[in-house]
């Protein structure tokens, strides 16, 4: 009985205040554009990596690209953080950033990048970007 009264009160407040409930942030086209942009950069990064022979895949050759992509992922994370009710997308972009930094650090430490590892890494990163895009599309 008490619960029913509380529910009635809640609905009345919503009706009187004429506000809708909001559980997820609004769809944002700029975020989708940024995700597509990062996906293209990651794709290009791995295409360049695969083109090089094993001995030529040293870290310095790719250091600049690592930085450029990291900056873009950080910008995407900020864009997600700026929007209220957006925790799932924030966590997704933080997970993407964590994976990217981990890959960069491993490449820097070993000064090499095995093609067998790179092939899986690219698949994982692109899947994470796809999940970010799917989240955004679900908000429409």
């Amino acid at each position, binding site marked *: 009985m008490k619960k029913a009264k509380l529910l009635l009160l809640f609905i009345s407040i919503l009706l009187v205040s004429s506000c809708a409930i909001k559980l*997820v942030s609004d769809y944002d086209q700029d975020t989708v554009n940024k995700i597509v942009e990062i996906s293209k950069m990651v794709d290009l990064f791995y295409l360049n990596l695969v083109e090089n022979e094993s001995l030529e895949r040293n870290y310095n050759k790719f250091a600049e690209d690592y930085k450029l992509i990291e900056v873009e992922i950080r910008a995407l994370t900020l864009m997600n953080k700026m929007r209220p009710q957006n925790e799932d997308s924030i966590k997704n972009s933080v997970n993407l950033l964590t994976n990217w930094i981990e890959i960069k650090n*491993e490449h820097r430490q070993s000064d090499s990048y*095995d093609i067998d*590892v790179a092939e899986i890494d690219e698949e994982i990163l692109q899947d994470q970007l796809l999940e970010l895009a799917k989240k955004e599309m679900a908000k429409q």
Partner: protein
Amino acid sequence: MDFNSIFSDLFNAMTAEFKDEAPKIKDQLLYILENNKSIIEKITNKLVNGKITPEQYEKLLKRNMRKIEDQMSTVNVMKKKAIQDAVNAGIDILRKAMKLV
């Protein structure tokens, strides 16, 4: 190597992690794990064939687990949006009904 047994262990480990929430998310967890079968098989085959080291294997699995977490949270967003739309549609109907009175 018995992948079905590996997946069964993985599913049990993950549902144990989610504890009380496990029965509610069992179906989506199974669906996402099914979608990840091919990549986990690929990573495991690379280990078995000596193309990657056990250390690299663990790192790749860890990165893939982060992706699985992202896939789970996409389902979460879809559910939240469906609830949001349903509740707001209900509020709209009630509001219109009140105006009619």
